[in-house]
Each structure stands twice: as C-alpha cells, then as structure tokens.
C-alpha cells in the first residue's frame, strides 16, 4: 500500500481544530483563577453583575484582608509549617533513600511497598490516633501539631521520590568512593548529597505545595484563629451576616494564598513536571 498525503484542505482543517482545542483548554485552565482575580478587584454592588473584563483596579480588598482578617498571620503560619515539615522530611529522607536505592538488603522490597502504601492511605484513618498523639505531646492548637501530622503524608512522599532520583545517579561514583576508602557516610554526604541537590529542590517543592494546601489536619488540630493556616482561614471567612459571604475578600485571600505557589510553579515548572511524572513512568 502506498502512502498518500492528505489533501491540503484536510490539513488546514486539522490545524484549525488543533488551535481551537488549544484555546479551549487554555481558557478552561486559566479562567477560574482569572475570574477570582477580577472579583478581588471589585466591591460593593459591582460584585452582583458578572463581568468578564477588568474595569476597575481597586486594591482595597487586599488591604482590608491583610489588615483586618488575620490572613497575613495565616500566610506566615502556612509558610512556617510547610518549610519546617519539608526541611525535616528531606533531612531524614537523604540517608533512607540512599539505602533504598543503592544497597541490597533483606526486606527492602517490603519496606518500599510499606512506604508507598503510607503515602496513599486516607488521612482520616489516622485522625483519632493522631489526636491522641498530639494531646500526649501537648501540641493541640499549636503549629507543632501540624508539623507532626504532616509528616504522615510528606515523609513517605519525599523518601519515595528521592529514592527514584537516587537510582538514576551513576553507580561508578560510589565505586570511586569505595576505592578511596571513603566510608558510606562520607559517600552519601560528600558525593551524593550535592548531586542530589536538584532532586531535593524538586521533591521539596512538591512536598511544600502538599503541606501548604493541606486542610483536614489544619482544620482539626488547630482552633485559635491566630494559629490557622491559610486554607482554614479562607474557609472560615465570614461576612457581616451569616447568609452573605464576603466574596470579594474571599477571592482576594484566595489570590494571596495561591500566588506564592503559582510563582514557584512557573519558575520550576520543568522540574515539577519531571518530579510528578518520574515515579509513575519509570516505576
């Protein structure tokens, strides 16, 4: 059978369809956030007529949200909790992932499977046990409770992703280390850790986003408004009456909570995409 090229109009039609689809996907992806931003710039009666283009640039919602509602404090809380969680996880993950990726030992397969299972099990399953643990440490209504509970999902995640990365590093480095008589500890800290820096940035970012976005533990283990993280603070914003939510303020806070993440994602998008997909495609 011979290969016949498609007629020209056929090709043109295909191209048009392609661009049309691309535009649709783009608009659907971006519109909700764009609309939230538009809403955050409007106030009063303006809110009650849907509009699709920016007409006013009124930043007063941002001012009121940051000064009155405690969103500034929650942004700080979220940042502190996410940073400390990720830092702790990365620290213990380096050595663990080296062993899991580079050393052959009995029980390794089971260990990897256990870690994978932990990263996937439902948060609610540890809720009451975690309650007990947090009370035991006297951490209830304290940011420490969040760091402790976030380890349940961040730690298996960082160990798993770093192990995947560690496997892709060349093994000769280790041989060189052994030749020089370097101990395992030196091999890890001097040879592998620096090479792993890019992977640690990627893993850290993904774990950071996970901790920043977490809601159930933050809602359950903290009650004082000044200890809330951003997602909880946004979910609890109330208006003057019980029946009317302050939509402009909610949207302004939403933009503030999302912007840091979007900036990080835009800067590191290549790494993030490869980090997200590496486990699945290579696994």
């Amino acid at each position, binding site marked *: 059978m011979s*290969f016949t090229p498609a007629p020209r109009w056929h090709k043109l039609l295909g191209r048009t369809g392609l*661009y049309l*689809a*691309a535009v649709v*996907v*783009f608009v*659907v*992806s971006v519109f*909700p956030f764009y*609309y*939230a931003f538009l809403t955050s710039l409007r106030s009063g009666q303006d809110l*009650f007529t*849907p509009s*699709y283009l920016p007409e006013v640039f009124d930043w007063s919602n941002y001012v009121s949200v940051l000064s009155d509602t405690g969103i500034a404090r929650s942004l700080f809380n979220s940042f502190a909790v996410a940073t400390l969680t990720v830092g702790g996880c990365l620290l*213990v993950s380096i050595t*663990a992932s080296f*062993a899991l990726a580079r*050393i*052959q*030992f*009995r029980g390794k*397969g089971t*260990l990897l499977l256990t*870690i994978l*299972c932990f990263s996937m*099990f*439902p*948060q609610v*399953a*540890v*809720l*009451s*046990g*975690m309650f*007990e*643990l947090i009370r035991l440490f006297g951490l209830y209504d304290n940011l420490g409770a969040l760091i402790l509970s976030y*380890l*349940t999902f961040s*730690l*298996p995640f960082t160990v798993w992703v770093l192990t995947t990365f560690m*496997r892709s590093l060349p093994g000769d480095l280790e041989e060189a280390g*052994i030749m020089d008589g370097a101990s*395992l500890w030196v091999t*890890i800290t001097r040879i592998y850790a620096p090479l792993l820096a890019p992977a640690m940035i990627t893993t850290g970012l993904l774990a950071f986003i996970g901790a920043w*976005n977490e*809601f*159930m533990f933050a809602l359950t283990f903290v009650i004082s408004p000044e200890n809330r993280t951003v*997602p909880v603070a*946004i*979910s609890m914003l109330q208006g003057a009456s019980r029946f009317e939510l302050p*939509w402009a303020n*909610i949207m302004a806070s*939403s933009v503030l909570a999302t912007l840091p*993440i*979007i900036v990080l994602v*835009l800067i590191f*998008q290549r790494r*993030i*995409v490869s980090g997200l997909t590496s486990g699945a*495609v290579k696994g």
Partner: protein
Amino acid sequence: MTLATETQTRSRGLAARFFNHRDLSLMQRRARSAWLLVAPALILLFSVAAWPLLRTFYYSLTDASLNAPGEAAFIGLSNYLDMGGDFAFGVLADPLWWRAVTNTLLFSATTVSMELVLGMLVALLLHQKFAGRTILRTAMLIPWAIPTIVSAKMWGWMFHDQYGVVNDLLAKLGFIEEPLAWVAVPELSMWAVIIAEVWKTTPFMALMLLAALQMIPEDLYESARLEGASAWQRFWRITLPLIKPAMIVALIFRTLDALRVFDLIYVLTSNSEATISISGYSRQLLVEYQDMGGGSAASVLVFMLVAGVAVSYLFIGRVKLNETGGHH
C-alpha cells in the same frame, strides 16, 4: 524490580572487581548500615503513621469520647454494628453512612473516568507540535497548583445561584431560563463537586499520560504509517498498549485520591447529605459529634475500602500486564 536487580548486579560486579576475597563481608556490612540509614525515617514513619493507625483501630472497639479518651471501655464491634437492642446501631446501620459510601463511589468513578478521557485528549493535544504548546502546558499547571480550598471557593463563587458566571454564561447561551442553584439543589450539587474536581485534577492525568507518550519512539508510528495504518489504528495498536503501564499507575493514584476526598466537599457544599463523602462522615462523627469510638470505626471502614480498591487494582493490573508480557 528491574532497578533492584540492576543495583544488585552492579554491586556484585563492583565487589567482585575490587574486593574478591572480602566481598561477602562488604555486602554484609553494607546491608547492616542500610538499616541504620533508613532507621530515622522508619522510626518517624512508624510513630506518626503506623502507630496512630493502630490506635484508630483500637479506639474503634471502644466507647471513647473525644473529650475524655482515657475513660474508654472496650465494647467489641458495637461501633460497627450492634444488633443487641430493638434497633440496629453502629456505623453500618446508619443510612447516612451508606449515603456517604454511594456518594464517594459515584464521585470517584465519575471523576476518574472523566479525567482519564479528558486527560488523554489533552495529552494527545500537547503531544502535537504547535506554536504556544509550552504556554499551554504552563497554564495547565495552574489548576493543579491551586489549593483545593481556594478552588472550592472559586467554584462556589462561579456556581453562585444569583451572581455566578456559570448561570450567566448558560443563560447567555440560551441553555437555561431560570438560574440554577448549583450548590444547594441535591441533584445538582454532586455535579458541581465533580466539575470542580475534574477541573483541578485533569492536568495531573494529562501530564502523566504526556510523559508516557513522549517515551514512545517516533519510528514506530513512521513504519505504521508507511504500512497504511489509520490514525485510529495507530492509537489503539501502538499508543494505548505502550502507555498502559503509566496509565494504570496514574489511575491508581487518582482513584485512591478521589476515594479519600474531603476538603472540596466540606467547603463547596458544606458536607450536605447529597455530597458528603466517607471521609467527611468519619470526621463529622469524630470531631463534631465527639464520638471517638464511632468516628474511629468509620475511619477504619474508609481505610479498608481504600485498601481493598488498591489491592484489586494491583491485582487486575498485574494480571493484565502479565498477559501482555510484563511492563519492562
């Protein structure tokens, strides 16, 4: 699996090359230090995940209250089902629990299949060469990165019955005459939740599938084209079988994630009966009603449901993969 054996052969080769007479002792020493290296992570993981999980199991067998868990008495399986009195008690006898199970299964099945189809289409689109492809891929990361609570609030605002854009657009396009109360009406609220979820999670599916598509060698398509295979045939005979392993992994991830849904429903529809999930039900019992025993029992049921689905996925996946000769 391959990677494990790869490491093994590599270490063996290495040991044989440099430490002929001492290789056993070296391997042993390395194995011993391996446990030392994983110990910190393992101990932490045990105390923040395995231990609380075990305690949840324990509390599910007691009548503990969240206020005073210390005064718990062992009551067997009564939190799950108690047929002792005139009426049946326990989570399994609660119609709301079964409502939550139906909601969660409906939510998971619908969102995951919509994500799979839409994600596949978007991945195929991004696999084409066209101007602006990079921008599109970047834009798609926005829904993925947005916190679920923010997404719930944004969609809540867009679905607003009086001032929302969704009703405005539908009215302008002539689909509706009266505004719809998306979040309040039971028949619509589940769809509102599903739409918000699909919007947020399709990018993940698309990126996973795209990564798999990019690993298929181009010449496979070239030769298929030369032999006169249609685009449809190329998709079914080449693309689909080759990306299947990655697709199954993405499906497992997404299904397990959907089964534990909580935030979106809690915020978008305030845990209404028409949308409440099993996680939402368990948390409500535990935290809002302070019933630590009952809440723990419901949590254990959530855990078993998710674990059951995971195991059956792995089983089906393995059977299918073995049929096609393994995925390595």
